[in-house]
C-alpha cells in the first residue's frame, strides 16, 4: 500500500472552552509532513481535546487548524480526510471485519471490486487478512484495534489520529501493537498524531513528543531532548523518573547534599529549590552522601534501589544488576554530575 507523501499539520493558538473552563489554552503545534508526534500528558491536560479538534469532532472556540496549509476549522469531520483510531472499540458490530474496513471506501463511492481489493490489502498490512469474514465480537481486543487501524488507513487519509488506541489492551499486546503501529507509520510515511498518557509509549514510538499540561504544550522535542533536557520541573517529573531533592541554586549550579550539579537552564530559579535528579545519574559508591537501603528490585537488565537519606528523603537509584544492596545496609551515594532541572520548593 503506497501512501501519498505526508501532509503537514498546524495548530495555531487553538482555544477550546467548555462552560468557562479552558480545555485548550492557546495550543501551538506544528507537525511536519510524515512526522509521528505523540501528545503526552496526565488526564485532563487537553491532549484528547486537541486531537478531537483536529478531527473535527469538537468545535474550537478560537484559533486555526491547518491541514496541508488549508484552514479546516469550518470543515465538518467527514470532509477532513483523516483516519482515526479510538480508545474504545469502535468497529461497527453489524458489519464483518472486511465490511468494516470497506466502510470508508464505500463513503467515497469506490467501486465494489476495487473496494474489496483495497480492504484486503489494508487488512494484510495489519496481518489480519484471514479474519475478513469475522465480526467484532469474535475478535480479541488487540485484533479489534488492528482492524480499526486498517479501517482508518484504507482511505489513505492525509493524517492519522490515534486516541490512546492501546490503553484498553493488556501489557504484552500493547507492546506488540505499539511496534506494529510504528512500523506501519514508517512504511506509509503518514503524518500521525498519537495521544497517550503513558510516557514510555510516547518515547518509544514518536519522532517528537509534545508534553501537555492544563491545555498548553509545556515542551515539544525528540524523546532524547525531553528526557535529557526537560524545560520545566513538570516535564522532568512526568517524563521518566526523577528524584526530587532539596538544594541551593546559584550561578548556574545547584548544591545538593554538598555536591554541586550544573543547571540545565540558567534562567531557572535561584535560592532554595528542588533539584530533579534521574535515578541513573546517581551511583552507589564507597563515599559521599550517607544513606540506608530501603528496598531493591530486579528489573531484568538493571536494578532499582530505594534508599533513605539522613534527612528522611527517599531516593531511587538505578544501577547494574550485579550490585545487590541488602535492605537495611548502609551505603553512600554520589552524583554523576549531569546537568539537572530545578523547580521551586513546596
Amino acid at each position, binding site marked *: 500500500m503506497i501512501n501519498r507523501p505526508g501532509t503537514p499539520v498546524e495548530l495555531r493558538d487553538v482555544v477550546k472552552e467548555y462552560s468557562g473552563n479552558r480545555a485548550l489554552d492557546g495550543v501551538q503545534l506544528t507537525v511536519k509532513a510524515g512526522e509521528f508526534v505523540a501528545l503526552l500528558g496526565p488526564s485532563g491536560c487537553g491532549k484528547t481535546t486537541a486531537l478531537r479538534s483536529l*478531527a*473535527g*469532532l469538537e468545535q474550537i472556540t478560537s484559533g486555526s487548524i491547518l491541514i496541508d496549509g488549508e484552514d479546516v476549522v469550518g470543515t*465538518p*469531520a*467527514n*470532509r*477532513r*480526510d*483523516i*483516519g*482515526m483510531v*479510538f480508545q*474504545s*472499540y*469502535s*468497529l*461497527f*458490530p*453489524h458489519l464483518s471485519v472486511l465490511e468494516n474496513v470497506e*466502510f*470508508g471506501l464505500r*463513503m*467515497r463511492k469506490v467501486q465494489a471490486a476495487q473496494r474489496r481489493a483495497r480492504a484486503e490489502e489494508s487488512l494484510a498490512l495489519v496481518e489480519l487478512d484471514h479474519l475478513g469474514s*469475522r*465480526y467484532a*465480537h*469474535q475478535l480479541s481486543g488487540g485484533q479489534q484495534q488492528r482492524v*480499526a487501524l486498517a*479501517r*482508518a488507513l484504507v*482511505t489513505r487519509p492525509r493524517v492519522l*489520529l490515534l486516541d490512546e488506541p492501546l490503553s484498553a489492551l493488556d501489557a504484552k499486546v500493547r507492546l506488540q501493537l505499539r511496534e506494529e503501529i510504528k512500523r506501519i507509520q514508517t512504511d506509509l510515511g503518514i503524518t500521525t498524531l498519537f495521544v497517550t498518557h503513558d510516557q514510555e509509549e510516547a518515547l518509544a514510538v514518536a519522532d517528537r513528543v509534545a508534553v501537555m499540561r492544563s491545555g498548553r504544550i509545556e515542551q515539544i522535542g525528540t524523546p532524547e531532548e525531553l528526557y535529557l533536557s526537560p524545560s520545566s520541573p513538570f516535564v522532568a517529573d512526568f517524563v521518566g523518573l526523577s528524584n526530587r531533592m532539596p538544594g541551593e541554586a546559584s550561578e548556574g549550579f545547584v548544591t545538593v547534599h554538598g555536591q554541586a550539579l550544573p543547571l540545565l537552564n540558567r534562567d531557572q530559579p535561584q535560592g532554595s529549590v528542588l533539584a530533579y535528579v534521574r535515578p541513573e545519574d546517581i551511583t552507589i559508591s564507597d563515599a559521599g552522601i550517607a544513606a540506608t537501603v530501603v528496598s531493591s528490585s530486579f528489573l531484568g537488565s538493571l536494578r532499582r534501589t530505594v534508599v533513605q537519606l539522613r534527612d528522611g528523603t527517599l531516593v531511587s537509584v538505578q544501577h547494574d544488576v550485579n550490585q545487590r544492596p541488602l535492605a537495611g545496609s548502609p551505603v553512600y551515594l554520589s552524583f554523576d554530575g549531569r546537568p539537572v532541572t530545578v523547580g521551586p520548593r513546596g
Partner: protein
Amino acid sequence: MSRRLHRVGAAPSRTTRIMIFVVIGAIFAVPIIAMVEFTLRAGLDGGYSLGHWAAILDPENERKYRALFVGVANSLVLAVVTVSIVVFLLVPTMILVALRFPRLQRVLEFVCIIPITVPAIVLVVGLAPVYAVVVQVFGSSTWTLAFAYGVTVLPYAYRAVQSSLGAVDVVTLSEAARSLGAGWGTVLVRVIVPNVRRGILAASFISVAVVLGEFTIASLLNRQNLQTALVQVSKSDPYVAVIFALLALVFAFALLFIIGRAGVARSIRRAP
C-alpha cells in the same frame, strides 16, 4: 456459544422447568381453548361445527358484521400510524438525545414512562379538549386516535428501543463513521439503525399489540376500533366476537413470536 454455557448454578432442573412450563402454559391455554371450544359450539343442543367461522365469510351476513370489519380496518390503520410515530418521531429523538444531548436522557425517560402511570380513563378526560382542537385541524377520522395511542405506547416503545440503544456505544460508532467520511444521514441509516434494529422491531410490534387491544380511549372518544366493534357485535352475536378476539390474539402472538425469532436468527447468522 453452546446453550450449556448460559446455565448458571442456580438454574432450575429439567423437571422444575417442565412443571413451570405446564402451569404457566395452562393459565394461558385454558381460556384460549375455552374460547375455541365456544366458537365451535353448534347451538344450545351440544355438538360442534364450523358454522360460526363459516358465517363470517358468508356475503349474506355482511351487514351484520360490517362493524367488525370496519373496526379491524380502523385498528390496522391506527397501528400503522402509531408505529410511524414510534419509528419516525420517537426513535430519531432518542438517537439525537443519545448522541448530542446525553444530559436530557433522564428527562426523556421520565417523560416516556409517565403514560404508564396514568389510567386510560384519566388520559381521556385530559384528551377530550385536546381532541376538540385535533378535530378542527385533522377532521374526525378514526386515524387521529393514533396521536393518543402514540402517547400510550411510549413507555413500551421507549424501553424496547432503549435496551438496544444502551447496548451499543452510539457516540463512538457515529464518530468513527464520521471520521471515515459519513454524513449524519448515513451515520443514522447505515450505522445506528442497523444496530438498534431489533429494538425498533420490538417497539413496533409491541405498539401494534397495544393498539389492537385498546378499548377505553376509542370508546370514550366515540371512535370505532376492533375492541369497540367486538363489544358492539358481542351483544347480538357472541360467537363471532369471540372468533375475532381469538384472531387478534393469534396475530399479536405471531408478532411477539417474530420479535423473539428476529433476535435468535441474528445470533445464529453471527456464529463462527
